[in-house]
């Protein structure tokens, strides 16, 4: 059984993993692109069969195209609809799933087609268990995006006229944090709410320098305390990383955080609380004060 797939793009063409997944199912691969023409052109050269594009958005955000994307994709009666796990892409996928009355699965590790339908393996409930789910009828999936490939052939971009819903961007404010790609870092130092003040990040930065590591954090440090950028937090809703070495410092190690570092080769945990859950998932456990241990570790690494 081959499955025709539609991929939905809300402005970011990083969909290599989605194209690979769609290709593995043997059917046609079409893409609905919201965003500037350049995004549609990039996708058209990425090894897909068809690209539809809804025109220059100007100051209209991707979310305003939710209903037109849903209509266009649903009209093609796809067996599978994919989107990258990014905020605007999720909105367009949700609208399309609603139009198709299709179930949505997230945290999917594999998908295959057999005579009965589509069979997906997914991690559920924040990663405590895994399920194999068999779906008859259309299915919508959220996947990690992956970089966009460049193919040897380009398909034409079909323009579809669209009337977006009433949303306009009236102001943009740049972030004060520089963007990082934690996924590429071989070593990562993660800091949590055990850090008392933002100034104390200097201690963590010094350790990261000595260990040639990137700095990351738990969610509340990036959302709430705002000490680091949102792309630096690790976990079920943040980055999933597989470094050689991860330091969890002043992080309790709740499930929702640890899911993001399960693939790390070695985990070191530093925490004052001997009962912190992080110690159950660490290779090296230091029960103690980060304010004493981090400077000592920095010195030992030099």
């Amino acid at each position, binding site marked *: 059984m081959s499955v025709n797939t539609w991929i939905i793009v809300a402005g970011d063409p990083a969909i290599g993993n989605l194209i690979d997944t769609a290709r593995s199912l043997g059917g046609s691969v079409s893409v609905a692109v919201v965003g500037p023409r350049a995004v549609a052109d990039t996708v058209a050269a990425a090894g897909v069969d068809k690209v539809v594009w809804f025109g220059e958005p100007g100051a209209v955000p991707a979310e305003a195209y939710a209903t037109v994307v849903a209509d266009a994709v649903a009209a093609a009666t796809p067996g599978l609809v994919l989107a990258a796990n990014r905020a605007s892409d999720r909105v367009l996928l*949700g609208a399309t*799933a609603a139009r198709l009355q299709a179930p949505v699965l997230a*945290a999917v590790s594999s998908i295959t087609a057999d005579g009965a339908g589509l069979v997906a393996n997914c991690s559920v409930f924040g990663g405590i268990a895994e399920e194999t*789910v068999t779906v008859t009828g*259309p299915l919508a999936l959220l996947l990690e995006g992956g970089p966009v490939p460049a193919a040897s052939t380009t398909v034409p971009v079909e323009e579809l006229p669209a009337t977006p819903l009433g949303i306009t961007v009236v102001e943009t404010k740049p972030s004060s944090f520089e963007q990082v790609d934690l996924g590429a870092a071989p070593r990562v130092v993660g800091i949590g709410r055990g850090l008392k003040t933002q100034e104390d990040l200097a201690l963590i930065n010094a350790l990261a320098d000595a260990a040639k590591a990137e700095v990351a954090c738990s969610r509340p440090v990036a959302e709430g305390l705002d000490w680091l950028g949102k792309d630096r937090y690790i976990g079920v809703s943040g980055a999933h990383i597989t470094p050689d070495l991860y330091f969890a410092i002043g992080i309790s190690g709740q499930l929702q955080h640890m899911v993001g570092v399960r693939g790390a080769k070695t985990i070191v945990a530093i925490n004052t609380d001997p009962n912190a859950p992080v110690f159950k998932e660490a290779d*090296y*456990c230091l029960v103690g004060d980060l304010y004493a241990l981090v400077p*000592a570790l920095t010195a030992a690494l030099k």
Partner: protein
Amino acid sequence: MKIVVAYKWASNPQDATVGAQGTVDWSRAKPGFSEYDPVAAELARRLADATGGEVIGLTVGTKRVDATLARKAALSRGFDRAVIVADDSLEGAGSTQLAAVLAAAVRHIGDVDLVITGDSSVDVGSKMVPTVLAGQLGWPAVAEVISITGQAGALRVERAVPTGTQVLEITGPVVLAASTDAAVARVPGMKDILAAGKKPVESLDLAALDIPAAAGTTTVTGTSRPDLLTRKGQMIDASDPAAAAAELVAALRGAGAL
């Protein structure tokens, strides 16, 4: 302005136990007002107070979500009233099905200007219910919302994007998913909990709602435990920080991690 807050009554998977075959046992995990949904309730209350609006709490789930304790816990969060769809056939319902029921309830409430949700639910947490709900209603959805001001038909919404923030103007009804740090939710006090018992609750009959049929079937055909790496769990005595650091660095070098 008529504002609906979609809140989930759910358990934290951290408190569930997982059997050898990957079956999840929730019996020891106590359900509660889902972790990030108080932020949605807080944003709604502030907006309603600023515009003279009404806040309606809405939840969908099994009979559990309509228990007295669950009702009171919800209504103490600053809602004016609550609408509840509780039916045991919703056990294990997926995001699309839950969103279809929520949408039917929003249509039943009528003339809703705005639905506010949390960032993600504590148990499922895929951030999809708000987006599918918007799709079912034919509305747009916007996530990562930091602030909401203005009036129905002329909302000003600030949201986080990877490069910073954007201010949006929205002219029609919309589903807004609050970022986790959009507001610090007030903790309900004794007064709120007592007042909660007197607030109106409408229980809707699932069968009486106009819910579109699912396009196919979804069947869980297998479960397993995640295949985790075995960790060494080696304790390093940290009473002397310098000695502990030296021991750790030596161990990491020995293991090829440094």
